[in-house]
């Protein structure tokens, strides 16, 4: 599904404050599996997620995607792989919103806006039917037990509820891949287990999951298919879960 080949990301390249967050990393994420990137803070997990999720381009190396929806995108190579690192921004955006659903560490919800609108936001630029979008967002909120908060400003929700809103938002465009960055960092053990259970249902539904975490509740979960450990931007170990 996702192949990362010898990828390096250097911020502020050529300046005195240059630093390499990801250094020559190669790994593969299989379709329909739950893959975890583990490692301490500053190990490069978030940077690698942002590179895979088309939010930034690597300084060197290649990332290939297989099985992505290619309407409006360049034709994939003969083996069906789409090399994304050299694509212009508009194609990266197209891939980002069609293929990936993001769950951020700090949820990254828009304050002051209603719960329902937060869920609908990723679909606004697509120009779809507003009634259908509202219905879909409503269904997602219902699925996560948040229907009663639909009209409330997001600020009034608890941490666990906010994370469920962030998950609902990640699913609104029906993505093939869910990317989550330290999803349990702000949750207690009970909510963390509930989160992992939810990931299990997504996996059963055929979605590919890529999670960055240094929480044992995540990387030691029986649901995990593969774990890649990062330290100082390098891949230091690969072990089957």
């Amino acid at each position, binding site marked *: 599904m996702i192949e990362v080949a010898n990828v390096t990301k250097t911020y502020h390249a050529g300046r005195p404050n240059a630093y390499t967050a990801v250094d020559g990393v190669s790994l593969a994420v299989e379709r329909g599996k739950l893959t975890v990137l583990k490692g301490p803070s500053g190990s490069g997990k978030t940077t690698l997620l942002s590179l895979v999720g088309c939010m930034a381009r690597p300084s060197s190396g290649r990332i290939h995607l297989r099985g992505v929806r290619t309407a409006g995108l360049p034709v994939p190579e003969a083996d069906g792989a789409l090399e994304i690192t050299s694509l212009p921004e508009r194609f990266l955006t197209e891939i980002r919103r069609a293929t990936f659903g*993001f769950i951020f560490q700090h949820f990254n919800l*828009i304050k002051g806006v209603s719960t329902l609108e937060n869920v609908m936001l990723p679909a606004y630029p697509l120009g779809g039917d507003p009634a259908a979008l509202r219905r879909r967002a409503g269904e997602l909120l219902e699925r996560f037990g948040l229907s009663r908060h639909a009209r409330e400003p997001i600020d009034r929700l608890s941490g666990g509820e906010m994370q469920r809103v962030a998950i609902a938002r990640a699913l609104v465009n029906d993505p093939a891949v869910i990317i989550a960055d330290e999803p349990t960092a702000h949750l207690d053990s009970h909510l963390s287990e509930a989160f992992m259970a939810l990931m299990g249902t997504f996996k059963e539904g055929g979605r590919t999951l890529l999670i960055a975490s240094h929480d044992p509740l995540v990387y030691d979960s029986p649901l995990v298919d593969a774990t890649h450990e990062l330290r100082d931007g390098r891949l230091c170990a690969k072990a089957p879960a």
Partner: protein
Amino acid sequence: MPGTLRRTLSILDFALASLLRRKGRNAALLAVYTLVVFVTASLVFFTQAVKREAHQVLADAPGLVVQRTLAGRQDLVPLAWADWVRGLRGVRSVRPRWWGYYYDGAFGANFTVQASEEAALPAGSARIGAGAARILRVKEGDLITLRGHDNLPLLLTVQGILSSDSELVASDLLLLPKEDFQTLFGLPPDQATDLAVDVANPRELPTLAAKIAERYPEARPILHSEILRTYDAIFDWRGGLLVAVLMIAVLCFAIFAWDRAAGLSAEERREIGILKSIGWETSDVLLLKLLEGLAVSLTAFLTGCVLAYGHVFLFSAPLFEGALKGWSVLYPRYRLVPVVDGYQLSLLFLLAVVPYTAATLIPGWRAATVDPDAAMRS
């Protein structure tokens, strides 16, 4: 509904929700913005309406006025000139006119005084403008006293108040019988202030003016079009004075608006990062910022224009009365006929809406062109 329109409407929906989140700040901005548009639009409406009013009043003015000058100043015209002008081909009528100015020290007011040859205005009576009646605190049937050139008082009975149709130029008018006028100012009976000449064909006016100037080198023929131009210049000048004062207010607003629009808060930058990370393109963010800017500037423009319309045409522009209306210390009270100049309004739209909207776009564009992974790091 096409996808592009649905996308625009969805983003507009979010833009309005975004503005409502910062109610206090945006309400303050909108209030100041609306005030600036209101004052500027009031000025534009007012100047246009007053000029139109003056044009209408002067529509019945003579085609040509002949004055006499002495050492470059206006002097009295001998009535013999009227007979000669009357003999020119194409002249329909020549009417000597007597008019001048009278300063009333007791009321501190300057009046325009004009002689009337109407039989309906007998000696010892006068008709006066509404503004003059207000200043002198008189009504029909009351007596007014004017001090003559020989320091003797001239007693006149107010026979009527002039209609408000011509209040713009007639508000400060005192209309006297010719004999009383000549007594008041000590004018010789064979001289008039100027001559009003009417012709059958207005295109002949410049030729007639040239003939009069040739016959009487000290004559100053003034064409109707020149009078209109003078009125335009007077009201443009008065409007210009107010604009000069307004510029300070507009400048203050421009600095305030630029500061508000051009600088994005850390929260706004973070939100743009979030939007990009969840699949918004740079163009989507720019459309959002454009719609936010348009929502504020269009609301301010439309509200300001509607308020200005009411201020000028329903309430007779009380804020500008002192600066723009009337002459001397008299300020006529009248209701202006609504007139809106499309060109001026378009210009106001361009000056009010475009700069602010552009100012909101630039920082939005700057924030939207960075990599969305900044959102993941926030």
